[in-house]
């Protein structure tokens, strides 16, 4: 024990703001907003190469040949994503039906990391067409596989949402969901850190989950990155 300990103890003694208890009690009584239920409102079209279209509204999945496997995988991953248990998609996407420009826009949108947002003009710069912000907006608006290709992570330069095929309210809820879902989860018993949604991560017990801010942070306290989901690549 030295003087630093006393100084720190005093520094860390923060009084709680007035009314904190009441606000927390009210929050606990609120019904959780179930985004999971939305999964029944989507239907999936898939070809042999992957998911070709994700549409809103009731309807049956449309699959061609071996596309059923992809449709099932997409449905499973979407359900996990909407429940806050997944931060990335592994189901292949079939973009054969889109033009060259739109393909580039969608590929760039796909690289926006989970939980982050960028602007239409920034995305236009990233594909080397800095003056094409509006065209980028149109290309994203016609995104055949929303959510899976995360066009909801693109917002207007002034911070407003802009157009979203499934409505602004859903865009808000998706971004809210991503804001409250952790990206890197370590297993306290194996000391391995995974991306949320990795098959190994999903097996971690509720009492063994430790969240990290980066793979380097995790490595600093004795965790190694998972070899399956490769969190280092994702968090870069």
């Amino acid at each position, binding site marked *: 024990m030295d003087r630093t300990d006393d100084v720190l103890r005093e520094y860390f003694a*923060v009084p*709680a*703001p007035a009314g904190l208890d009441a606000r927390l009690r009210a929050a*606990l009584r609120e019904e959780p907003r179930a985004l999971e239920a939305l999964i029944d409102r989507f239907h999936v079209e898939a070809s042999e190469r992957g998911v070709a279209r994700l549409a809103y509204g009731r309807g049956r999945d449309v699959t061609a040949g071996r596309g059923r496997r992809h449709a099932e995988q997409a449905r499973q991953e979407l359900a996990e994503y909407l429940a806050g248990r997944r931060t990335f998609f592994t189901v292949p996407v079939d973009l054969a039906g889109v033009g060259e420009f739109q393909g580039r826009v969608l590929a760039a949108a796909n690289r926006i990391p989970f939980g982050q947002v960028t602007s239409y003009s920034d995305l236009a710069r990233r594909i080397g067409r800095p003056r094409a912000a509006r065209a980028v907006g149109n290309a994203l608006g016609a995104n055949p596989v929303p959510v899976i290709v995360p066009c909801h992570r693109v917002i207007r330069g002034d911070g407003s949402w802009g157009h979203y095929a499934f409505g602004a309210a859903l865009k808000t809820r998706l971004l809210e969901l991503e804001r409250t879902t952790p990206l890197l989860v370590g297993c306290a018993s194996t000391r391995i850190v995974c991306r949320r949604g990795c098959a190994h991560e999903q097996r971690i017990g509720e009492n063994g989950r430790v*969240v990290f801010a980066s793979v380097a942070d995790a490595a600093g306290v004795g965790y190694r990155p998972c070899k399956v989901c490769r969190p280092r690549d994702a968090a870069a």
Partner: protein
Amino acid sequence: MDERTFERLAEEYAGRLYAVAYRMLGNRADAEDAVQRALLKCFAARATYSPRWAVSTWLYRAVANVCIDELRRRKVRGHEESLDTVSAVRASRGGVGGIASTPTASIARLDLTRALARVPREARMLMALHYVNGLGYRELAAIRGISVNTVKSQLARGKAILKQALQAGGHDGSD
């Protein structure tokens, strides 16, 4: 664990969880949000709570997880340091979240906030849990899922970085 028991627990721990979150995130709104999210998560998972664990370990882990994830987002946005400094200045002026005190004490606190911003996240988290709640090494290890030796070395390293930053004075214009 039934709803009533959980509510009583939440009430008992809210203040301490808030103090940890406030010192990690640097402002009242984010801290309150973090405590709320952590408690909601625990509430939803209260069926899986195992009595093998101390209740405090369970709650502190939840709030630490939320705070660390929030810091990850800030790192991506790239203004972790400036946010900390801004809220420290605000706190030192109005006494928000801090104890009302003399100008010298608030300058000292501002220095401490700046110095703490240099301590790596994991060590800072352990320091907050250690100094707010007086938690021992074993409980800190259980909360962050690390070994007791790692806890000791992280705390020692954090304190060394802090002392060095305080000695440098924090007024070298590098902020």
